[in-house]
């Protein structure tokens, strides 16, 4: 495509979109400010997309790893604790509160 000499194109033939006009306004600011704002916006976009990607992967890795590493033991511990409290409650119902305390003490002595 041949290079267009933008300086000498008459005004009626210039077609600009709204966004291009808005971008043209940035020329009124000094160049360091333009670069700073452009850099900040780019960095924000990058950090948002990378942060989102990181969070997605971190949540997936943490969830699946805890499933494999901790879940079976935690389920088993909850079940066994529940069973122990149920047994202690039944003993308390049957034989009175002293028996429940004794039952709780005796496994620790063994």
């Amino acid at each position, binding site marked *: 495509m041949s290079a267009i000499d933008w300086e000498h194109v008459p005004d009626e033939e210039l077609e600009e979109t709204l966004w291009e006009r808005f971008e043209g306004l940035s020329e009124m600011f000094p160049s360091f400010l333009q670069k700073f704002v452009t850099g900040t916006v780019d960095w924000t976009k990058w950090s948002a997309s990378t942060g989102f990607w990181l969070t997605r992967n971190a949540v997936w890795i943490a969830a*699946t790893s805890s499933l494999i590493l901790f879940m079976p033991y935690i389920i*088993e511990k909850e079940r066994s604790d529940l069973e122990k409290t149920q047994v202690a409650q039944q003993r308390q119902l049957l034989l009175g509160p002293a028996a429940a305390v004794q039952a709780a003490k005796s496994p620790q002595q063994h």
Partner: protein
Amino acid sequence: MAETPQSSPPPSQPSSNPGSYDELHRKARDIFPTCFEGAKVIVQKGLSSHFQVSHTLSLSPMNTGYKFGATYVGHKQLGPQEAFPIFLGDTDVAGNTTGTFLHTFGEKWRVRLQGQVQQAKLAGAQGTIERRGTFSTFGLTLANTDLVNESGIVVAQLLRRFTKRVDLGAELVYQYGRQVPGGQITVPSYSARYSADFWTAAATFGMSGLHLSYHHRQTENIQFGVEFESNLNVQEAMTTFGYQVEMPEEGVTMRASVDTNWTVCGVFEKRLSQQLPFTLAISGMLNHAKSAGKFGIGLIIG
């Protein structure tokens, strides 16, 4: 205690003999689970107090097959857990067999012979003589010695207890043969182990790399292990973190490990009944880098 020679050191007590050189990193390594894939049924039956037989049936994408194993333990009792001679054998349907024979002479000398036959050919054979003295263990191993082709591997190991907590050792591997560049190659390596009340740290370093391990016993039922292995020949290193939790009243053991290859692995074993000897094992492994997972379930009877 350190003055009297003990011929049968119980494994969990510090005794005057430092144990075998190969067992330096054993404490940390025992924490890590062995992940398996597919279904597995193991039936172990003791035919007498000396003889035990095991049948292993495995259904998995890698190997589907049946294995038969037999163990014979002799009459010479050295300690509560150790009796000699020991014969161990393993065969599968295709005829691949491994056999191990262990024996002691007197109380100080131990002999171990191992052989492996695959596809009707001897794939490997290894013999070890070990002298367990009061403060030191000296071992000599001859592996794959081929008299016809003049090739083989000789390994000499020495592990000595210097103080109640510190063990130092050295190992020399000598390999000779036509395939070895230059006809022969010698690789020395050194190792050290420090045992404290609740933790043990071991290190092995040599020309082929560095191997460190750390074992920590937090409470009676919780243990942690960390292992770092590096291989300079292939320029690879790997660190593994693992833990083991037991609930002895329920017969539950959980082992899990995470390593730097982005792999997590966990094995959960539970005894299914107080009276009947059924144990259920489930294993799960996930490699995050490759997004590949494996699941295994096993039933151990006996």
